[in-house]
């Protein structure tokens, strides 16, 4: 599948989102709840110490990423898995499709995975005639609505209960209800049949452990466990930077991920899958295939944005971001929204397409405050803006204005002249003003301060 061309119309999307009252209310509710829960969950723990240690471990992996990938692959194979390396999205999709075809499988259950969103796996498999059933309730809602997730942890965060009720009534043919518990029961019954009959399970992984070859999956609903233990074939699609060195490193991340994501001490289920079902065992897929996606990460890790790959996809920076809170995830027009999403999208999809997202931040820094692995999000955003300028992707007017600013800033005389000109031209400029911004600012003072007192 080719990506849409042109750059993402973020401002237009955002302007539309702002007028959508239902969306605004849903986002306000959800991000507000998350902020409170997270703050509660980290209030009585040595958070700074945890963050430093977790960040250190992530950097340790990134410093030797290629080695860690090899180590993980070796361990996984030793435990009985088959490991596939996919250099890009297309390769990864094909590997999954081929595996299903080889096994003669036409239907798979799937637990939530952002990597599968990144590679647009579902669309691709459907075109190949494979039915994919999303089993995470949020993903299921999104799937039957034929939408894309608007949050990396809570895919249907933008929908309220009435919208879900209507959707279920329409698509599943059940009686309308807007009671979340009743809606959950309906989905449970539908999906239980799917689990029991599915021959393949597709999952992602929150972490991959180099020394043991284990995949670690966090879920609350239990769908991750079901997708990975019930069907005979399990395909896990994950990206190379999810690797951590050893089992002993897990506690660091178990302590931080759920707390940062949903404010839970730990998710209800934390599954660790190591290889395939052995003789005498009654659990585990008979066939486990792990697809390790690179998709640009090997080159990102070698460059100045490497720290972005420390990210453990907790979603805390989305919840904390005033822009995300206001416009929701779809406005970003990308797989990953919010502060981490802006950076990842530029890195994964290219500056030409994603440079508009670089304006989706006030650089307030609220994201960096909450990031459990200390990704320096504002600094990376500023660097990417510099790169955008160097690539000549900013508007001509802005470039000329900045060039003028640069000259004036180093010459007090020119600067003074500029102030005077601004004062004189302001009334006129205001009328034709740049998107009305000048109208939102006061008129320059008759005499600048320096002149007044000197």
């Amino acid at each position, binding site marked *: 599948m080719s990506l849409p061309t042109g750059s993402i119309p973020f401002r237009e999307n955002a302007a539309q989102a702002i007028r959508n009252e239902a969306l605004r209310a849903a986002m306000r509710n959800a991000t507000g709840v998350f902020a409170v829960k997270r703050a509660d969950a980290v209030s009585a723990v040595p958070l700074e110490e945890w963050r430093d240690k977790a960040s250190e471990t992530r950097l340790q992996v990134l410093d030797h990423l290629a080695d860690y990938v090899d180590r993980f692959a070796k361990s996984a194979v030793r435990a009985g898995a088959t490991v596939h390396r996919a250099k890009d999205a297309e390769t990864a999709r094909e590997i999954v499709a081929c595996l299903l075809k080889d096994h003669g499988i036409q239907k798979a259950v799937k637990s939530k995975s952002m990597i599968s969103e990144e590679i647009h796996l579902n669309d691709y498999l459907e075109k190949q005639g494979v039915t994919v059933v999303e089993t995470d309730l949020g993903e299921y809602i999104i799937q039957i609505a034929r939408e894309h997730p608007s949050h990396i942890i809570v895919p249907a965060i933008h929908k309220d209960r009435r919208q879900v009720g209507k959707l279920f009534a329409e698509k599943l043919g059940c009686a309308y209800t807007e009671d979340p518990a009743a809606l959950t029961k309906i989905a449970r019954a539908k999906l239980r049949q799917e689990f029991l009959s599915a021959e393949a399970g597709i999952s992602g992984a929150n972490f991959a452990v180099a020394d043991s070859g284990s995949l670690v999956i966090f879920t609350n609903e239990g769908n991750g466990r079901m997708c990975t233990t019930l069907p005979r074939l399990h395909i896990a699609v994950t990206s190379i930077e999810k690797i951590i060195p050893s089992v002993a490193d897990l506690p660091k991340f178990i302590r931080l991920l759920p707390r940062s994501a949903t404010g839970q001490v730990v998710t209800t289920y934390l599954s660790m899958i190591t290889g395939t079902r052995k003789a005498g065992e009654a659990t585990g897929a008979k066939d486990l295939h792990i697809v390790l996606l690179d998709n640009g990460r090997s080159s990102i890790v070698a460059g100045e944005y490497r720290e972005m790959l420390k990210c453990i996809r907790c979603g805390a920076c989305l919840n904390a971001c005033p822009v995300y809170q206001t416009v929701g995830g779809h406005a970003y027009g990308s797989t990953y929204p919010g502060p981490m999403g802006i950076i990842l999208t530029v890195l994964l999809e290219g500056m030409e397409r994603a440079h508009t997202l670089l304006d989706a931040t006030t650089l*307030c820094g609220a994201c960096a*405050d909450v990031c459990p692995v200390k990704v320096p999000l504002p600094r990376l955003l500023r660097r990417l803006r510099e*790169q955008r300028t160097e690539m000549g992707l900013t508007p001509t007017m802005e470039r000329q204005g*900045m060039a003028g600013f*640069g*000259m004036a800033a180093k010459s007090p005389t020119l600067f003074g002249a500029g102030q005077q000109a601004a004062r004189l031209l302001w009334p006129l400029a205001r009328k034709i003003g740049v998107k*009305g911004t000048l109208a939102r600012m*006061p008129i320059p*003072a008759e005499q600048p301060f*320096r002149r007044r007192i000197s």
Partner: protein
Amino acid sequence: MRVQLFVTCLIDTFFPETGEATLRLLRYFGVDAVLPTEQTCCGKPADSGGYRYESRKAAEHFLSVFGRSTDPIVVPSGSCASMVKNHYPELFRDDARLHAQATAVAGRVYELSQFLVNVLKADRAGLKGRGKITYHASCQLTRELGVKEEPLALLRSLDAAEFVPLPSADRCCGFGGTFMAKMPEISMALADEKLDTILSTGADTVTGCDHGCLMNISDAIRRRGAAVQAKHIAVVLAEGLA
């Protein structure tokens, strides 16, 4: 004691009365505040906009003007103070000479409330105020400079004024420098939400340490016709001087 005052281009151009209030305050505490007249802008708009070349021009100029003396540099703006303190060294990451200069100057920079409290102990001077005041904690001041308590200490110390805390005080007001111009819809939506919380406190004045934010909030106030005023903390404090 002598200090150099960097008044910031925003105050210089649009809010000279804030510059005057800053001077009066410093003088009240016996500080000899020198205003280098060749000062222009710290380069923040270019820096956050991604114009490294231009922001370096501004930064080099700043270093040459304020590097002449070793007196402390007082800045009535959290974001401009942070620009000099935190971003200059980053800006000159590949130029050893300028990096050294930037680091030296960075060590002498104080945001106004920081200087007033930590150096002048102005929160123990029994300054006067009036009305009911709430406070917006601007982003760079709070997160980059780590100045959280100083403005609160000053405002709480005011005689005859009532300080009311602002809910989610450190949530962004939507100014964001060039963001205000490039994403006006979101900028206004955030300013509107900020105004909602301000009005919920019943304060008649909202203050802060950054004119950028106060300008954005003032615009929200104007659009809604709300009966509250946005004033720089220097003005609030100077109003009570004899």
